[in-house]
């Protein structure tokens, strides 16, 4: 019997103002979030999930009337790696996002219109500072762990460096402390595709047609980088969509082309092009070592860290995870590192559920147990 997914519900938290990293003030700010499970009486079982570029607050469960569960549902729920019978899970949409949190498509209180390009350039640290406000609001003093893949992993690193006392452990997955020129290059190609779309109109498209073609191309580029040569071959081969006599000029002949077009077009329905521009800029500029050397980066951190990378991930290659591990080693942190054998490429962090579950389940258990023991006056 299949256990039905618990119903998930989106909530909102609004606060007056945030001083951004660039010195500008932004407000009011609304953060959309969801929670799963229950916070225990001493507030020691809270886990913050941090989403990737195209993710949102809906990490698990089903929204009323919908068929598709949240983006990491296979990891979160009763008896799963993030066991909601034990832990209290929180996931929020990032600042700059378009799924309920304040971003370029939100109404600017000064003009009564969407911010569009009046929205300030935000950073990964700004996103994390909003999450810190949310955690404070929920009455949580210290998180059991912060966890996320890709851009979510960058937020994990920002938590480590900027709020070291607020977390007991951290799990950065398939991520980097700094984007390489290759990663920046892919993002720039995506941004230029959006900005080259005539409907983009310097960001002012909210009253008309959105730059759907540009955003779809940006998403296609993204999807190419999320897969591997092997996973693409396994999924599509050179399979054609139709027989040669039906063929027209420059249609999507191959399965892979059809897939990318489908993914691109689908993305447009649920994502805002300006958000794509702002967020990719934020992650390109991110520096998880805060401009310091690897040697100095984590010197005030005390959290226990587990870094996970995937062998076929060429967008966020394992060597970048090893840089994070190196910083942890130098800082003398309790660290684990696992390079999971996978052919899925960067997407592996959403697909290699069995391995990831094993690693995370045991790691969390250990961190949770150690804390309970050290706080138990009878021991």
């Amino acid at each position, binding site marked *: 019997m299949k256990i039905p997914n618990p119903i998930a519900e989106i909530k909102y938290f609004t606060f007056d103002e945030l001083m951004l990293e660039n010195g500008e003030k932004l407000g009011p700010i609304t953060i959309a979030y969801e929670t799963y499970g229950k916070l225990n009486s001493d507030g020691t079982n809270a886990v913050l999930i941090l989403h990737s570029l195209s993710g949102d607050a809906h990490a698990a469960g089903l929204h009323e009337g919908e068929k598709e569960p949240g983006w990491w549902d296979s990891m979160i729920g009763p008896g799963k790696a993030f066991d909601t019978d034990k832990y209290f899970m929180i996931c929020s949409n990032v600042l700059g996002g378009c799924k309920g949190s304040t971003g370029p498509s939100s109404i600017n209180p000064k003009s009564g219109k969407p911010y569009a390009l009046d929205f300030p350039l935000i950073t990964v640290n700004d996103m994390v500072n909003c999450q810190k406000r949310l955690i404070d609001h929920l009455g949580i003093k210290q998180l059991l762990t912060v966890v996320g893949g890709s851009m979510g992993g960058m937020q994990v690193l920002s938590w480590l460096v900027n709020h070291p006392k607020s977390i007991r452990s951290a799990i950065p997955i398939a991520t980097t402390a700094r984007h390489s020129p290759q990663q920046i290059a892919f993002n720039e190609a995506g941004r230029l595709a959006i900005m080259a779309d005539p409907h983009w109109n310097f960001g002012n498209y909210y009253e008309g047609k959105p730059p759907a073609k540009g955003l779809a191309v940006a998403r296609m580029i993204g999807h190419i980088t999320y897969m591997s040569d092997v996973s693409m071959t396994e999924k599509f081969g050179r399979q054609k969509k139709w027989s040669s006599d039906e063929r027209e000029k420059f249609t999507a002949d191959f399965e892979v082309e059809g897939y990318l077009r489908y993914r691109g077009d689908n993305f447009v329905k649920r994502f805002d092009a300006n958000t794509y521009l702002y967020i990719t800029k934020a992650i390109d500029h991110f520096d998880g070592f805060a401009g310091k050397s690897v040697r100095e980066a984590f010197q005030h951190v005390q959290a*226990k860290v587990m870094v996970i990378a995937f062998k076929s991930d060429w967008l966020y290659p394992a060597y970048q995870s090893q840089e994070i591990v*190196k910083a942890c080693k130098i800082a003398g942190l309790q*660290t684990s*590192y*696992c390079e999971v054998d996978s052919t899925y490429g960067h997407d592996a962090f959403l697909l290699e559920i069995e391995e990831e579950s094993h690693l995370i389940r045991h790691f969390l258990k250990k961190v949770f*147990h150690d804390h309970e023991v050290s706080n138990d006056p009878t021991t």
Partner: protein
Amino acid sequence: MTQQHDNVRPDHRIILEWIKKDSSVLDLGCGDGELLHLLIQEKRARGHGIEISDEEIYKCIAKGLNILHGDIENGLADYKDQSFDYVILNQSMQQILHVDRVLQDALRVGKKVVVGFPNFVYYRSRLQILFGGKTPVNASLPYQWHETPNLHFLSILDFIEYCRKKKIKIERKAFLGKDQRVYLFPNVFAQTGIFLISG
């Protein structure tokens, strides 16, 4: 509380005896983490392991250990001098390509280093070579020539001589037969040599 270690591997028993309480330990090539886990439980050690095999990594994580996935050769460089009270190379030294470099680095990173390795000139091996005319396969060298992970074949005497040449101090040593300690002619009768060394 002293516990009986009847089900503990004999080499682990010796290492457990040598490691002082509350020490920090780095176990290079820690396998499934059995020794590290034992040291944490019995000696309140703070420890890290480095291991190359995926399968063993998952076992280590299940034991709640801090484990780094990677090879030993590159694993030491990032640590500061004297980061650990002990660096352990138990049954892994003979599988390392650049033994000399790794040992020097282990002596830099650890205040003391534990080294355990199979004695290649154990008498059964000698007999197998002499009378069998074949590469020895026995309890301490369990692999066929085409599948062995061992890159170096050394004797207890070889290691003692190496330490003398490199001016490495041997603080303690122990030799093992099948299950028992060997005290007489270890280079002949011991399957395993275990050394505690310092720079």
